[in-house]
């Protein structure tokens, strides 16, 4: 038996995964959702800011992790808009530039940047070159880091950028990341240089694979809250639905598929370990 388990063609497992993950698309299971403490903290930190506070929203991911990071960015931008926070959106990833523009059009309307709030409540700087150096420069002097916004308007012509000269003016840094530069670089080159977590609070939305590496920073208070992958996005959307009737839901309907997929992976792990145990202790190949 153990031998037959170890000889299962992995392509059958892929096929099984494909079929089971597809089922919730056709027949939604509506499994219950519990809001995790990390997602709730991101919501509470943002909600706790007084209207008019300046939030930096950094789009540091690419198309490969859109499924996970895009719901974070979209939901948080919507939250900031509804809570009347001022947002300076930018990207330190070159592939994040077009994504930020795309999401802002979804949140603020397809005419973005030709909306009344542009320049006073929302600014999109687009791609800021330089990776870590660009981050540090932006924290030291925002105008020096990027001369124009994403649409070619000089930064000096945007009233919001007059209020947001350096990291001393940031009330919250929302980092949407799937790699480097990401939250660690913001901690090192912006938060660390400008007074620590109390001066530049950071919340993060990250692809799930990176979250275990962030936990030491969360435990040390350098990160105040984390949206963990697709599940974190779904939880944040649920919080916004409860408070603001959030209309741009994206991650929440996909959580059924993810739960089914996780159950299948857990089953694979258990079956694989049973096979290993039989082969080791039952006198099979592995003994």
């Amino acid at each position, binding site marked *: 038996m153990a031998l037959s388990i170890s000889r299962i063609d992995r*392509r059958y497992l892929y096929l099984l*995964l494909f079929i089971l*993950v*597809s089922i919730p*698309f056709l027949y939604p299971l509506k499994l219950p959702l519990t809001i995790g403490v990390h997602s709730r903290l991101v919501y509470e930190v943002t909600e706790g800011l007084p209207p008019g506070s300046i939030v930096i929203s950094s789009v540091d991911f690419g198309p*490969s*992790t*859109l*499924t*996970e990071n895009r719901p974070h960015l979209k939901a948080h931008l919507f939250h900031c808009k509804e809570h009347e926070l001022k947002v300076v959106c930018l990207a330190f990833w*070159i*592939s994040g*530039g*077009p*994504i930020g*523009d*795309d999401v802002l*059009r979804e949140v603020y309307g397809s005419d973005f940047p030709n909306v009344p709030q542009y320049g006073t409540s929302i600014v999109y700087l*687009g*791609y800021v*070159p330089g990776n*870590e*150096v660009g981050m*540090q420069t932006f924290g030291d002097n925002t105008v020096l880091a*990027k*001369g*124009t916004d*994403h*649409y*070619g*308007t*000089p930064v000096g012509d945007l009233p919001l950028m007059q209020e947001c000269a350096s990291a001393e003016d940031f009330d919250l840094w929302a980092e949407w990341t799937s790699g480097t530069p990401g939250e*660690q*670089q913001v*901690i*090192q*080159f912006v*938060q*660390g240089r400008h007074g*620590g977590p109390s001066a530049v609070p950071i919340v993060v939305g990250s*692809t*799930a*694979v*990176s*979250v*275990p*590496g962030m936990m*030491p920073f969360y*435990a*040390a208070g350098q990160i105040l809250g984390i949206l*963990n*992958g*697709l*599940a974190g996005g779904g939880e944040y959307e649920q919080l916004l639905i409860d408070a603001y009737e959030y209309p741009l839901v994206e991650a929440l309907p*996909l959580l059924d*598929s*993810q739960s089914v*997929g*996780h159950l299948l*992976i857990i089953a694979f792990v258990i079956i694989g370990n049973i096979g290993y145990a039989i082969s080791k202790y039952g006198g099979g190949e592995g003994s």
Partner: protein
Amino acid sequence: MIPPNVGQIPPELGLFATIFGVFATIFIYSFLWKENPLSRAVEHLFIGLAAVFTLGAMYDAALTQAYWGTDRIIEGNFMWIIPILISLMYFFFFSKKYFFLYRYPVSIVAGIMAGMMICGQIQSNFLVQIQSTVTLPLVGEGVWEGWPPPGLDSIIIIIGIITALSFFFFTWEHKGALGISTKIGRYFLMATFGAAYGGTVMARLSLFIGRLTFLYQTSYEDWFWAWYLIPIAVICVIIVALWERSKPTPTPPTPETKPTRKGKSE
């Protein structure tokens, strides 16, 4: 200059984008069945597109930064020419005679990054982490209230740090008290790797669900084109795989004989 709406798909290209996306998705996932020319073609296409996009966007960002919009150089701020000149020195990589000049921009970038990273790492990844560990609450109001109490978290973190660090202590043999500590530390490390594996599974599954969402739910003018294109794409993969299987297997080339120092062949 790259147009600002570079990420937007123009409406007239919506159908083309849907068709292209469906075929690319099926072709790249066909790799799970077996590697085939279609999966390789899409892989190469992706790398090429990413390279071109990065090159174009970087060029645009550099010029926007230095020339357009800001007029920094026109206003006499010639300091902004220096980075451009330094970056142009990278092209000496292609010159045998002046190759040594290529080393200057590399050295400058490496030096700047080393300086920045060392300061940043020591402060944020080392000192703050130590500080937060030694100030973990063990006594005080509310530390042992509720379940799980925060004090219990603190004790687990302290034990985890000490035992996991002892696992990497190689001066003495792992016997006695040190042996017990390293064994406990190993379990903490395994739990950490397990959490990382769980996160990896969750992330990869999310990406797969994202592609399925595109395939199942992308519509163009109220038509779910993907539903009709998926079977066509799958048939294409099968035809190509069968065609490749029908080809004779090439025999591996025999290694060339290399002359030895004494002129004899090995």
